């Protein structure tokens, strides 16, 4: 297999692997309200691989699903939309966090760390 073909294959699988994790990453940073760009900055600072064009629509979708709630802050020079976890969102976040932890434990068991 040509190198570029293999790289393409990797990227397909990586995208699939990261897709679900992205929501969890977003939820984790919204226990206190943040606006779109500040959230993007926070995530990028913490090495999360996410693009602006992916984050903004995703925030909107999560709001539609009542996982996030939003509020326009008009006190500054220009309005900003602040997102934070709703009650449902908080519950979802905690439950997802637990299942993520379980997943990590199970995976570490499978693909192992130093102990194997």
């Amino acid at each position: 297999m040509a190198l570029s073909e293999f790289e393409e294959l990797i990227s397909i699988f990586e995208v699939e692997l990261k897709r679900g994790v992205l929501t969890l990453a977003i939820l984790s940073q919204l226990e206190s309200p943040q606006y779109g760009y500040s959230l993007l900055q926070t995530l990028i600072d913490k090495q999360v691989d996410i693009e602006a064009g992916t984050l903004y629509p995703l925030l909107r979708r999560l709001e539609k699903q009542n996982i996030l709630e939003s509020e326009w802050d008009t006190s500054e020079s220009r309005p900003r939309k602040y997102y934070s976890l709703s009650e449902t969102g908080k519950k979802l976040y905690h439950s997802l966090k637990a299942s993520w932890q379980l997943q990590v434990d199970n995976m570490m068991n499978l693909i192992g760390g130093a102990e194997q």
Partner: protein
Amino acid sequence: MTLIDKYIYTVTKHLPETSVTEVEKELRSNILDMLPEDYTDNDIEKVLYQLGNPVDLAGKYREGKRYLIGPSLYGNYCFVLKLVYIIVASCVPIAAFVIAATDSSLKSPGEVLLHVLIQTIVIAIEAAFQVFAWVTVIFVILERSGAAHKIKWPYTGKDWTVSDLLEPQQPRTNQISKADSVILIFFTVVFTGIICFFPELFAWYSKSNGLWVIEPLFNVDILANYIPFILLTSAIGISSAVLMLVFGKWNVTLAAVKTVHNFCIAALAGSMLFNSRIFSNAFKITFMKTVDLSQDVFAKIWRWSIWGIMIFILTFCIWDTVSSFRNIHKN
């Protein structure tokens, strides 16, 4: 209009009206956040490229399903489409025949036959589009209404159980079914018997004044020259069928006999079809008059038909030979 306005417009253009204002406001706020204090046009460009293709972005903002039939229904959709096509395809010739037979403006059987052919093609094309449209519409409705998730084990609406499972179909092997040999022998004997001993049965049958008028297809005395070759070809054919019964599976000997047989069929068909004297003129004239065609047109159709039959026979012989050899390696 600034570059930002244009970008936002391109994104929101195809969004549902209810979300346009909100997305517009949100996107503008986000873009302005991404820009430095005293930004230049260059900075704007950079931010817009970072946001990416506006149509892609619009796609991500759009809510609801962005497909007609989803993966959970697609298999069922293809299956139903195929099934309906098979049912319709078997009804089309019947419908065409009914239409042509009840059309009082058609006088001769030739005209009726021609109409059946034309109607078959017309109805088939029309039906193909209709079936596609209706099946698709029904499945789109199923998809949209959420009924898709209720269709469980093939269309029963229930969960599957082990008792629903089918016996696996016998895999194709190089085994030869006995029926194939028997059918081959039967048709070889019938065809050879008729063409060698009762060639006048191939004829144009018409009724005139309550009496059957029979116009044979072949000039019997010319056909007689071919009889030894026909008998030889049939003998090879029957031998191959007997060998099929004896061996019970495909092997090189059998494939070789098949090849010889097919070669003889093709050679015989070619030499007979392209020998214009073999077909009786009386037959051609009766045919021509019945379908009411001018001599030129009829001659052309006749020539095409001969070629058509020849190509059909040739294709069949080649296919049969090739598949005989391929069957050897099937397990």
